Every structure is written in C-alpha cells, then in structure tokens.
C-alpha cells in the first residue's frame, strides 16, 4: 500500500490554544481511515488541515508538514488544485441554493469545464457514483434545498466526486442523518473505496469499526494510537484507547 497523505510533526494553534500536538499520521491509498475520539480532541481540525480549509480560520497557525503523494500541500501545491484533488464533505449537508444539476456542476465549472454535454455526463456519473442518480434523475432542474437530509448529503458527496478528487475527506458525514440514510452512506463509502482514498471523522465507533481499514484515536489534540481498525478495537495497546472504545468516557 502506498502512502497517499502523510502528516508529520504537525502542531496547530488557534490563537493561544494548541489544538493539535505533534501529530504523525499516514493515510494509505484506497483505504478508509477513520478518526475517532471525544468532542474537541482535534480530529475535525486535522481533517480540515488536509485540504487547507483551516486557512479560512482567523488566528490559526500551523507548523509541521503535510504531503500529498510526497508533495508539500502548503508549499508545492496551489490551494485550488489541492482542494480539487482532496475533496471534502461536511458535517451538515450544505447544498447550494441552486438546482440539483447546478450543484453537481459547480465544481467542474470552477475548473473550466464549459461544454454542456460534458457537464451532463459528469453530473450523471457523479450522481451514479453517489448512488443517488435514480432518486434524482427527474429532479435535475429542481432546487436541491427541497431534498431530504440524507439525499442532500449524498448530493454533496456527488458534488465532491464531480471534480474527480483522489482523496475524499468526510467530517462526521452522518451525524445529522437518520439510520437508514446513514447505512446508505456507509455502503456508498465502502464502494467508493476502490477508487478513492477516504478519510472520515466519526463519533460513532460502530461506524468506524464497520467501514474503516485504519483507525486513529485522538485525545486532547494528540494521536494516542493508530493502526488497523481490527487491532485497535480488539487489542488496543493504550489504556485510554481501551477506556474510550469500551465506552468508559467520551
């Protein structure tokens, strides 16, 4: 397995508060890596660092190195190129107040796709990949705001896929959804794994266990333990990991 994303000796501060403490972590190609840990442990902060969404946060200082295929994402790669290669799905479904079609076409249009036929093809393929094409094929011109929460979230995944990223980051993508929508998204992620490197933040340990290949456990800004999901959940090395996954705190 090749290392796709690599974080080394990463410190991150919001003002005076240190949110991440010397994090070292590798994420492998075509695998699902799950970040688990209690609220405020820095897992969302780290995932936002991977496509530089933290740039938008005022007073955020980052030290260390993050590489994508060996290239430094803060030095060697243009930020819009990085975000095209590393797509992101957010905690709350956030479709634009536009039609379904325009939502998915937004990314390709941003990166210069103009031809209508090409856009239609990309939109259909992305919606198919996100397993939502059949539900939405008659509603392409309708506003995306009228969809259910679960549909909106899968639309957002389709929108992220439309720019053909290499990595897909998901920040608690199912925490605002019902169990049926959640299981649809989990199935979807399992099938996307063959083409994409996926990083997912989750509060739900069962979810991490069900879908991920690798798991990293975060506590107070540090990576306490990381490795194969099965090992972490069956034979945790650290006492704190064991306490967390057995539900003693968090």
């Amino acid at each position, binding site marked *: 397995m090749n290392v796709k994303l690599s974080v080394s000796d990463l410190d991150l501060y919001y003002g005076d508060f240190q949110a991440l403490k010397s994090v070292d972590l590798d994420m492998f190609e075509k695998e699902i890596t799950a970040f688990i840990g209690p609220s405020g442990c820095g897992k969302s902060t780290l995932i936002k660092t991977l*496509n530089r*969404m933290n740039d*938008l946060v*005022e007073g955020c200082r980052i030290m260390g190195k993050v590489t994508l295929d060996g290239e430094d994402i803060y030095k060697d790669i243009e*930020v*819009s*190129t*990085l*975000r*095209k290669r590393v*797509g*992101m799905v*957010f905690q*709350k479904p*956030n*479709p*634009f*107040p*536009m*039609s379904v079609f*325009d939502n998915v*076409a*937004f*990314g390709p*249009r*941003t*990166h210069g796709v103009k031809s209508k036929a090409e856009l239609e093809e990309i939109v259909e393929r992305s919606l198919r990949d996100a397993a939502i094409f059949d539900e939405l094929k008659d509603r392409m*011109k309708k*506003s995306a705001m009228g969809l259910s929460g679960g549909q909106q979230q899968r639309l*957002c995944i389709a*929108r*992220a896929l439309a*720019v053909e990223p290499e990595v897909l980051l998901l920040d608690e993508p199912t925490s605002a959804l019902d169990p049926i929508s959640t299981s649809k998204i989990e199935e979807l992620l399992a099938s996307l794994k063959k083409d994409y490197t996926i990083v997912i933040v989750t509060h739900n340990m069962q979810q991490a266990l069900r879908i991920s290949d690798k798991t990293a456990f975060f506590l107070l800004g540090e990576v306490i333990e990381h490795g194969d999901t099965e090992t972490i959940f069956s034979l945790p090395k650290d006492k704190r990991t064991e306490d967390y996954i057995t539900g003693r705190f968090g």
Partner: protein
Amino acid sequence: MVKRKTLAAVAVGSGKNETDLREPINSNKHISTKKISSIMLRVLVYLGVFLTVAAMLFIVVYILIKGVPYITPSLFEFTYTSDNVSLMPALINTVLMTAVALVVSTIIGVFAAIFLVEYTGRGNKFVSVVSLAAETLSGIPSIVYGLFGMLFFVLYLHWGISLLSGALTLAIMTLPLIMRTTQEALIAVPDAYREASFGLGAGPLRTVFKVVLPSAIPGILAGIILAIGRIVGESAALIYTAGTIAKVPDTALDSTRTLAVHMYVLASEGLHINETYATAVILLILVVLINAASSAVAKRMTKGKFK
C-alpha cells in the same frame, strides 16, 4: 307535531352540547380571558396595526381623492409652460435621476459591502468603524447632502446645477443605506455555502459572485427599494444641485426638476394646488411601479437560474 318538534330540538341541542364538550383545547379563549395583561397586550398590538394601516390608507386615499379628478391629458404634454404645468418632463427626469443615482450607489455600495464582509476578518475594527460611519451618514438630513453637493459638484467641479450633480449627490446620500443593507444580507448568507464553494477549489471571486451574492439578492433588493424611495421622494438635496428647470435635459450637465421638486415648486408658487395633488398621485404610482419592477427583476435573478 309539537312533540316531534321538541324532540328534534332536543336532539339538535344535545348534538350541540356534544360539540361544546369537544372544544379544541388549543383555542385562545382559555388563555386570553384569564389575564388582563394579555388582553391589554392584545388591544395594543391590534391598535398598532390599525393605526399603521389607517395612517397609510388615509394618506393614500386623501391624495387620490384630491388628485385623481385633476389628472388630465394636458398634464402629460411633453413641454411645460406656465399655463399648462405639465408633469411629463419631471416624470422623465425622475426616472433618469433615479436610474443614474441608483446605478452609482448600488455598484459602489455592493462592492464596499463585499469588501467589508468577504475580504476582512469577522470582528475587524476597521469594519465596525466603517459601519458606524455609514450609519451616521444615513442619519444626516438630506439638506446637508444638498449643501455638500452644491459646494463640491456644482461649484468646485464646475458641473453647474445639473442632472449629474443631483444624481451624484443622491448617490452619496443613498450609498450608506445600500452598503449597510447589503452588508447585513451578506452576513446572513450561511458560512456553509462559502465552505462548500472553497472546498470545491473555487476562489474568493467565484465564491462571492456565484454563491454568496445570488443568495443575498433579496436582502440587497430591500435596500435598493428603500433607496428608490429616498431618491424619488427627495427635494431638499436637489433644489441646490439639480435645480428646478422643468425640461428634459439635453445633456447630463443641464438642470432638471424631478417630480418631488416639481411638487415643491408648484405648492410654493401656490397657483396650481390641484395639479400638485395630481402630481402626487403620479408619484405614488411611479414608486409602486419601480418597486414592482425591481422585485420582478430579483425574482428572475434568484429563480435558481444562476450558474
């Protein structure tokens, strides 16, 4: 017969009793009759609504009654003479003046607001100073703007008493209004939209123009409609900057008279009070038309058509 009738009455009565028992539990009856304070509040809010609507209706109806009988075809002749005080030149001038002033103040105001909201950090000192300045400016009496316009555009820039001097004075006057409403409208756009757009690799330019601005259009439009009201209704600031010549100007540097100024002049001359009311009716209709047109434009722009 008699007996049957009473029976029927009893049956009806009992049926009614049954529905009485099943009275909706959420009817306001139980709540509002209990407390005097809630009755008083109820009376006060109804009174507030009544007085607001009544005041507006009274003004509109009064003007209509006084003005409509004097709307004659001769009022719409293209040239104004002292015998026939035609309002046509003033009507055309009003539309011209509104268009020029609005284009200038909307462009500058919207861009200023975009800078303040999208290109500076939240809680920035500079932003709060600019916002405070804008709020202060929008509270200044219009005659002060008129004086400034006269000193700067008319005298210093030698534009004379002209359409351009008047329009730019009005643009400055409405700029804070448009900037502040646009600012509020932009702040109200959820950050999730911006995140989504940046997350797809879009830059600030594309994010602002394709995502944020289209969502903010209804709010911006509210500001523009208020600005239209102020421009169309302005007389004090125009008398010293655009003047009172009742003629459609040949160039932007000719003096013009808008409907509001036209009304002021007619009323102060005191010779054509009836025509003044007729002019007021036309001014009312014009304001309604301009507002309807701007909402129609905004509706088309927000129909999900933007790409």
